[in-house]
């Protein structure tokens, strides 16, 4: 019997046993859909958590005045003097000096009382420049952020965090309203997009509760301070999370040379990466990866056992048929091939339909539940491959065994 006839015979058996084939395909399909959706949910969660963590600024370096001379964190160097200046920040933006630094924002902050009409709210007021938005990875819900001309003119403008705006203005539109900061009237020009409450950031307790003003305005009108040019920190964003340590080296070398310091121990500043955020991100990522692997493994196991059962039952109830085909002259090889064709067709049809259903589910379900579902091509292809493999192994193996029985034993089986 040639291959075309074998294929036709297998296909004919699939088509003529409509009920059994449909149930088998359905079983495989549901297994594959389950695998794709559970893995998709897991990956969706992983990406969501990942993006939330990166929103906190995992590739962020913070330069603060003073230095630590020991692991115990005792400060030495030039003490608490404000050794960092706007000039330092400007120098670090040079692509020549620091190619791995993406954006730099000098910042001074202070806790101040804000008053709008009868509302009263104490929050962190940050004086900074337009790059802050990029460095912090933030965006605006309305209005605009500080621009360079605000710095040049020491404009009396303020950008509010979502929580701050809510506390001061309730549901009124804050843009265009006036806020008194330390008795200084400032005009609200924009509101920051919310990032969700999180306390992981080392610079701000709640990233949604702060007020941003131009650095020049802050030092001239609000904070005072020893030098108009000094800042309390410089925020540095590495060009990517992979270049964080290179960015660290560049910033360190440049600041040492700007400050005329020759020994690393004499540094009058400290650069900290957001280690806590980074290590949290890493551990969360690890946990999610393990969880995801577990979910995928269990789904595949369950789906695989389903496929296995269907194939085993399907073959077992056909031992008589195998016996008859043998009595009529089919060799064991021909029987095995027929079942191979059947199992492959059922596995492929079930697998592809399951993948399609999974993809449709991944598109529709996120509208019903709040979690995103990411369809991973690897998971989809892997699930189909495993469905076909399990279908073939558990369809062909028992069929092959039945084909080896003396035909009369197979014919007599019930």
């Amino acid at each position, binding site marked *: 019997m*040639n291959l075309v006839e074998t294929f036709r015979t297998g296909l004919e058996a699939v088509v003529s046993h409509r009920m059994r084939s449909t149930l088998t395909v359905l079983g495989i399909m549901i297994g594959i859909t389950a695998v794709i959706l559970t893995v998709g949910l897991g990956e969706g969660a992983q990406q969501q958590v990942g993006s939330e963590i990166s929103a906190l600024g995992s590739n962020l370096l913070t330069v603060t005045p003073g230095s630590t001379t020991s692991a115990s964190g005792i400060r030495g160097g030039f003490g608490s003097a404000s050794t960092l200046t706007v000039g330092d920040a400007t120098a670090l933006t040079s692509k020549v000096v620091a190619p791995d630094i993406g954006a730099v924002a000098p910042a001074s902050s202070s806790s101040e009382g804000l008053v709008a009409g009868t509302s009263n709210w104490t929050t962190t007021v940050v004086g900074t420049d337009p790059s802050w938005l990029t460095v912090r990875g933030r965006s605006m819900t309305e209005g605009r952020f500080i621009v360079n001309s605000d710095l040049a003119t020491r404009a009396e403008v303020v950008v509010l965090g979502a929580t701050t705006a809510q506390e001061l203005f309730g549901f009124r539109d804050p843009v265009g309203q006036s806020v008194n900061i330390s008795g200084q009237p400032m005009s609200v020009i924009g509101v920051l997009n919310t990032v969700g409450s999180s306390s992981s950031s080392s610079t701000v307790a709640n990233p949604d509760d702060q007020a941003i003003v131009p650095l020049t305005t802050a030092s001239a009108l609000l904070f005072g301070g020893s030098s108009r040019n000094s800042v309390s920190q410089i925020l540095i964003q590495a060009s990517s999370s992979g270049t964080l340590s290179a960015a660290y080296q560049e910033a360190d070398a440049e600041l040492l040379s700007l400050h005329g310091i020759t020994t690393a121990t004499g540094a009058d500043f400290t650069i900290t990466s957001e280690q806590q955020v980074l290590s949290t991100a890493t551990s969360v990522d690890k946990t999610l990866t393990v969880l995801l692997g577990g979910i995928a493994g269990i789904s595949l196991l369950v789906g695989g056992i389903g496929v296995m059962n269907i194939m085993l039952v399907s073959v077992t109830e056909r031992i008589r048929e195998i016996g*008859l085909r043998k009595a009529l002259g*089919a060799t064991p090889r021909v029987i095995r091939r027929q079942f191979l064709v059947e199992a492959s067709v059922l596995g492929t049809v079930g697998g592809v339909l399951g993948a399609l259903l999974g993809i449709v589910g991944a598109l529709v379900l996120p509208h019903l539940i709040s979690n995103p579902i990411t369809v991973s091509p690897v998971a989809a292809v892997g699930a189909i491959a495993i469905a076909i493999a399990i279908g073939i192994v558990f369809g062909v193996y028992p069929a092959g065994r039945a084909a080896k029985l003396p035909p009369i034993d197979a014919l007599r089986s019930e």
Partner: protein
Amino acid sequence: MSGIDDTAEVRIERTASHPAVRRPVIEIEDVWKTYRTGSLEVDALRGVSCTIDSGEYVAIMGPSGSGKSTLMHILGCLDVPTSGTYLLAGDDVSTMAEEELAHVRNRRIGFVFQQFNLLSSLDAARNVELPLLYAGVSRPERRRRAVAALERVGLGDRIDHRPGELSGGQQQRVAVARALVTDPDLILADEPTGNLDSVSARDVMTLLEELHDSGRTIVLITHDADVAEAGGRSLRIFDGQFAGADALAAEAR
């Protein structure tokens, strides 16, 4: 060998009406079949010998447990003897491997089972085509021969009916058509009327007789003496041996 002598007269009688065919289809000699169930050994066949010539219609008769089914399975190459030789149309099938046996079953033997053993998902023509499929016959040729065989058994108008849509007698006639379609050396019918009402049974028996009259070699296995009478010669099997053989062997001494 006395068993063969016993048949000589009958054989001459049969071959008288079919002078052209005289070669033996089946030659079995001292065939034993032993089943092992744990430590228990059961001899289902105990040294069976016989010769069946081309064109003969032989009924093998015996009560249940006599070994007639075992003999039928060995004659049909569905099972192999524990010892002894079996020449089917001159070829020794007792030493053949699985693949060769499948080939022999396919080309040389047509089966008619008590349970019909039709595939319920295939229509009558497809069922009849099955042995041709495994013989590597092309699709149009398969179809043509299957239709011819179905017409031969009087089911030319039931070609596209599935077994479920046919009566028991019609199903058995489809099975007979399937046994015919490869033009085998031997048609083996195992209790072909066992599951049929008397009218259908008579139909099937008439059909087998007609096939015999047209020159087919038929071996019929039955426990029913009336059915056995249809055959030109009947061999009685009892406790794994041909009953007549012992008596004749004793007589010869």
